[in-house]
């Protein structure tokens, strides 16, 4: 009769993977506890449900910001026999969901040994740009110093550059849109309008749920600190500034006929410099936090993916800033090849790395924006 053999919280729902089954078990435990309700979006969303299908679990996993608060606060965390570790379980489920939504499916394997894959692609891209520059240009051009408008294009014609990067960017956008579509389908094509998108954008822009319910996120231990949120902001806004810099430069080129490099006081350089500095400090800070993180919270098998993305962002900024500082010296040719190689590989690997977390989390927040309203209106299924 009284069957104690099943692990506490185990349900009868069938799941595609063991980690989703474990996530289901934990959500069943948490749903009968609810102490963490005020910490983030995951718990209120969980309370609206009684049973958890794979789509629901993928939604909750991507809604989790990994702040760690619910681990430090859980009376059932290991070594307790109920073994409740929500941040780690959802981190693994989240990472597995990235692979499941990858487009084309054939490339989903890139998530498995992501650090290695991205390192190889980056190295190959850099090598290809250097080789291309060398084949195209005589050594005196490659190793000479160039100045004035159009200096970069003496090494690589602008149309080529625009063509290659335009294609890489377009590919990344299409692949990620397909992934986003797969995620949206998996979580049941929730209804959402502009209001929800706006609210989600606000939540994402402020990292509303990376604050451990108000005190800051837990990283090394149960002492809250807010450094991760700060460094994430530096990274995210640094990235946006760099992107803005490139966009403005493209506009200058085609609309105003002004050729790079631009003087230091011009908009593309100012935006790029500010963004580049953010992209140096932010990823470095996140990386340092990652090193110090309580091993209990870490999905060791995805270490490579997390690190690879941060390193790529850091290198993008580093090579970009180096190019800016040394653009009038003979090092410019090599630095340009280096920077372009790094940026190219950043683009083409974007759909197959940690970058996609932002996309899926944003969509999860869009869905949550609606659920939050239902909870507030009292129209949610569970009370």
């Amino acid at each position, binding site marked *: 009769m009284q069957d104690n053999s099943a692990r506490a919280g185990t349900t009868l729902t069938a799941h595609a993977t063991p980690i989703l089954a474990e996530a289901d078990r934990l959500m069943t435990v948490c749903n009968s506890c609810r102490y963490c309700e*005020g910490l983030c979006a995951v718990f209120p969303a969980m309370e609206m449900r009684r049973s958890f299908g794979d789509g629901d679990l993928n939604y909750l996993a991507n809604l989790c910001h990994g702040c760690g608060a619910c681990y430090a606060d859980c009376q059932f965390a290991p070594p*307790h026999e*109920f073994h409740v570790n929500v941040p780690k379980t959802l981190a693994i489920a989240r990472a597995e969901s990235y692979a499941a939504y990858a487009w084309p499916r054939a490339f989903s394997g890139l998530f498995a040994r992501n650090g290695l894959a991205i390192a190889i692609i980056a190295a190959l891209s850099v090598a290809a740009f250097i080789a291309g520059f060398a084949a195209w240009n005589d050594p005196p051009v490659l190793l000479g110093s160039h100045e004035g408008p159009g200096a970069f294009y003496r090494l690589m014609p602008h149309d080529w550059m625009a063509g290659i990067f335009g294609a890489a960017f377009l590919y990344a956008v299409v692949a990620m849109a397909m992934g986003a579509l797969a995620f949206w389908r998996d979580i049941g094509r929730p209804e959402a309008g502009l209001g929800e998108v706006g609210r989600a954008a606000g939540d994402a822009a402020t990292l509303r749920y990376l604050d451990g319910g108000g005190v800051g996120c837990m990283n090394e231990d149960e002492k809250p600190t807010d450094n991760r949120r700060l460094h994430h902001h530096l990274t995210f806004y640094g990235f946006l500034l760099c992107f803005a810099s490139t966009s403005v430069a493209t506009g200058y080129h085609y609309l105003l006929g002004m050729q790079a490099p631009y003087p230091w006081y011009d908009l593309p350089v100012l935006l790029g410099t500010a963004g580049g500095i953010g992209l140096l400090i932010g990823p470095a800070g996140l990386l340092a936090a990652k090193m110090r993180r309580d091993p209990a919270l870490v999905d060791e098998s995805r270490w490579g993916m997390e690190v690879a993305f941060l390193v790529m962002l850091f290198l993008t900024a580093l090579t970009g800033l180096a190019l800016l500082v040394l653009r009038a010296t003979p090092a410019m040719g090599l630095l340009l090849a280096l920077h372009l190689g790094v940026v190219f590989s950043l683009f083409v690997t974007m759909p197959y790395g940690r970058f996609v977390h932002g996309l899926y989390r944003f969509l999860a927040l869009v869905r949550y924006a609606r659920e939050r309203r239902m909870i507030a209106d009292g129209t949610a299924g569970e009370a």
Partner: protein
Amino acid sequence: MVDWSKTWDVLVVGGGNAALCAAISAARGGASVLVLEAAPRFYRGGNTRHTRNMRCAHDAATDILTGPYTEEEFWDDLLRVTGGRTDEQLARFMIAESKPMLTWIAEQGVRWQPSLGGTLSLGRTNSFFLGGGRAMLNALYLTAESLGVEVAYDAEVVALDIDGGTFRQATVKRPDGNHILRARALVAAAGGFESNFDWLREHWGSPADNFLIRGTPYNKGKVLRLLLDAGVEAIGDPTQCHAVAIDARAPKFDGGIITRLDCVVFGIVVNKDAVRFYDEGEDVWPKRYAIWGRLVAAQPDQIAYIVFDAPSLGMFMPSLYPAIGAASIRELAGKLGLDPDALERTVNDFNAAVRPGSFDHTILDDCRTEGLTPPKSHWARRIEKPPFYAYPVRPGITFTYLGTRVNRDARMRMADGSDAANMFAAGEIMAGNVLGQGYAAGMGMTIGSVFGRIAGREAAIGARG
């Protein structure tokens, strides 16, 4: 590392809410404070780890409390649940002191939130900890440490040297051996004796073997025993405790809140003979949940089964283990190990006695039985729509009430009627001063915080002369 040779101003024994409130208030009073916690670091904080809220009087709604809860109303509730078995002066004093607790606790870094989903009935009276009891403890420990309080884990107090009413030193058992610890004042905040089965058996007999302990395995009553043996006056009945009916599949210790079941009012409860034994619909659940532990403890083999049918399944808070389901009452009986004929008879008799009414589980509705013993006074609906479900339940002991007698300074009283010179108590270990029997949700933390704060303050004053 703790300096074992030092003489501390205040020694606090225990590591839960009462202990930390005492340690913080003693440190704020300028005392050097050492906290000795028997549990390892992860399990620090005993039963406090499992809590979610605290009951404090307040005269107006706040951003987390939906309305006023006056001292008078608190007192009425306490009087009702204890059936008058309380020390009125001390209880009224505690209630008055609970008011400033809402801000004092927040000043120690603990954060409040509105009542949790599924516990709306407590939204006016009880303040909930954001992140639950362990979050609360983490905040208290951080604050205590920032005030210079030192904490030793795996540090069980196994002997106390008490001379008349004066504490002199304690013996502490640590993994590296025993240490002697001297202090000018003692605050005992080491919980009740709920996880000591030998002690429970002394008063309950063999039924105690079937009890489950909802919280920490470390509250073995060691310190309570040492104090009573050293001549401190006892208060309370050793069989009185907070006990609820919890899922029988729960672990022996530390299953916590998630093994509770809130579905008694939706069905019937039968014992191992498949016979009902108490009115399941006597009153609303928040007012009745705390009697079911004792009720089940009085049944043969201390086991019972909550039986209900399909329409009720989604109407209560989910819990850890799934309900046991079956297509028929007979099949359900088989799965539960009950006599199918007997269970069928009980369900049929119940169904036949149910009068028509309009069901509303949020009020005392008019759905009741007629001519049935015991009756079901409210929420009686026929159990007829398969699948049928059951949860097995056993007595789940929360904490015991036998304790040390204290005065309003939280100072212990000796059996000869004198006041102890430098010994104070707070929390479960003195809960019996206020709770002779019965319970109202959130009072465990009120008792610990109010008397913990006072004990720390008074101990510091005494120690620093």
